[in-house]
């Protein structure tokens, strides 16, 4: 009894709601008339982001994996079919206006297309002006200008080269960095970065990824880094969750999962990454049976069954749950039952 009483205050402080929690999130597109055979873009997905200490979590997957759907659900752009997205314990579907304001301030985003995110009719300054105005970040014009310039410097841009320009007058790398500066202005706790460098040139990618790591290390901002490129995920993330057809295939420490993947799909994925070294060619051949590519109906069991080199009977019955295969390392495969 005594022990419990003494322990209680500690438990209370530790049970403060996490910054962002995703609970059994499922999203099915379409009218819901055809319940059978309809594919879920995301199925029963759960995740918890504490907020501090700041971490970079990668959500990796190919097209159709559900990663973009997840981003849009978290940001409140889509309504889930089932499950909830909770911001500091509150379901975002039913939050009040005030909570939305703080949610928007603490959870920001940058997107894939560095041109499409701008309204071409206005100079880029406007992206800063809007957030400063909407979130009351400055008292007057001078302060507004000052914090804007500070934010630009943080991302390595020179204010005099950037302010006053229209989007088409700047390069893709500059535009993407401006978006990071805009997010930074709000001093968020979490930035959802949806494929932030996939439309950027190789030589600029490294610079932007370095800025992301800098924001995490020096400004305490966590990132949800959504990508199809495992090399960049390997380089910058702490944790990784690999999605396949709406379900989690494997998750855990990024370095471990990518350097020695356990799930057959993730193994195939990592092997197929073209390594920029002629001495490390692709090993063997991969055959995609065309019948499988043309097959539209969904399997009852594991979604990777058709391509899996280790398929077993049990795989056909039900999709495998996530099994624990190491410290915080999970894989959804009956091989690890």
């Amino acid at each position, binding site marked *: 009894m005594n022990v419990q009483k003494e322990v209680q205050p500690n438990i209370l402080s530790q049970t403060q709601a996490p910054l962002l929690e995703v609970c059994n999130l499922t999203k099915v597109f379409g009218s819901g008339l055809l319940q059978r055979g309809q594919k879920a873009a995301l199925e029963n997905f759960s995740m918890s982001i504490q907020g501090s200490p700041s971490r970079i979590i990668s959500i990796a997957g*190919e*097209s159709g994996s559900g990663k973009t759907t997840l981003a849009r659900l978290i940001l409140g752009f889509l309504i889930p079919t089932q499950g909830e997205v909770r911001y500091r314990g509150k379901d975002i579907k039913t939050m009040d206006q005030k909570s939305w304001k703080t949610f928007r301030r603490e959870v920001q985003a940058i997107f894939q297309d560095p041109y499409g995110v701008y309204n071409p009719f206005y100079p880029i300054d406007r992206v800063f002006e809007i957030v400063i105005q909407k979130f009351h970040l400055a008292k007057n014009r001078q302060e507004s200008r000052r914090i804007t310039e500070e934010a630009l410097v943080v991302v*390595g841009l020179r204010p005099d080269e950037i302010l006053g320009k229209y989007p088409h007058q700047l*390069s*893709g*790398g500059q535009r993407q960095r401006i978006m990071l500066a805009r997010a930074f202005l709000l001093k968020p706790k979490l930035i959802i970065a949806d494929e932030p460098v996939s439309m950027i*040139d*190789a*030589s*600029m*990618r*490294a*610079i*932007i*990824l*370095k800025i992301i*790591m800098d924001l995490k290390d020096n400004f305490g901002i966590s990132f949800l880094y959504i990508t*199809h*490129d*495992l*090399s*960049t995920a*390997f*380089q910058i993330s702490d944790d990784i969750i690999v999605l396949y057809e709406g379900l989690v295939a494997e998750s855990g420490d990024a*370095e471990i999962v*990518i*350097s020695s993947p356990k799930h057959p799909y993730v193994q*195939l*994925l*990592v092997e*197929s*990454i*073209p*390594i*920029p*070294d*002629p*001495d490390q*060619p*692709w090993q063997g*051949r*991969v*055959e*995609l049976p*065309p*019948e499988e*590519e*043309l097959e539209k109906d969904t399997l009852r069991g594991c979604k990777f069954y058709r391509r899996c080199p280790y398929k077993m009977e049990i795989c056909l019955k039900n999709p495998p749950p996530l099994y624990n295969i190491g410290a915080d390392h999970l894989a959804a495969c009956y091989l690890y039952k």
Partner: protein
Amino acid sequence: MTERKPILKVKDLKVYYHIDRGSVRAVDGVSFTVHEGESFGIVGESGCGKSTMAMALLGLVVSPGTIEGGQIFLDGTDILSLNRELIRKIRWSQISFIPQGAMNSLNPVMRIGSQIADVITTHQGYQPEKNLRKRIQKLLSTVGLPHRVYRMYPHELSGGMKQRVCIAMAIALEPDVIIADEPTSALDVVVQRVVMQTLVDVQERLGAALILIGHDMGLQAQVVNRQAVMYAGKIAEIGEVKTMYKNSLHPYTKLLIKSLPTLQLRHDFQGIPGLPPSLFNPPKGCVFSNRCPYVMEQCREAIPKLVEIQPNHFVACHLHSEVIR
């Protein structure tokens, strides 16, 4: 290495776009040679001129673009000196093309079989139906697609399958040179591997030369024998693929490789600060001078020439042309 006959030789090619603001020097004095049966990669970032060059090789440069100078020798003939009719004849039968986003250029209301048939009959005239069908089905197997794709529509196929259809179209007339411009950019990593496998198989079977244009250094390393690096309309370096990745000489090539995230070591990549120069008004000297960590006085004054530093290794850089002197 057996000496292979050159099948495509580009000499000092210049393609400029003339618009009201001025002239964009998209391709500014590019020279290289591709040999029979070889896979040759042209790698560069956006705006370096690689796609414009692909267009020039196919005789598809249209206003406001113009060929300002240079020669393109396809199997000995300068195609730039040919009239449109002759260029049309050699296009597809001697040199074919898989464009970027090719899978989106398939006609959505025509069956695959008819579309491939179109390609064949446009260049070879009327063909009896039975022969045509057999021929097309054979082509489909060559790219790893089942015969029934012949009767299918593009929307019924996956991205990777559509891209393989485009490969089938490109090899239908058994050309000597296949140009592939970012053939896998919209595809997932595993599908990309399958499509590239198919492309290389097909190339080897035909004995054709493959020119792979792109920005993905990883992909190039897996596929090509020799590689050229383009920057701001010029060639920076050409060499055998191993040399390019292990012993490159041009500062841009070296920095480009250093900027690639690998699966080896974490936090081990470095970007290239700065921006490429404007192609309206290229700098007096070397186009890379404003970003080069090894820049010297003469780099800003004189344009470095592309010189063969070692056998089969060409570099356009003042750091290395000194050696020759």
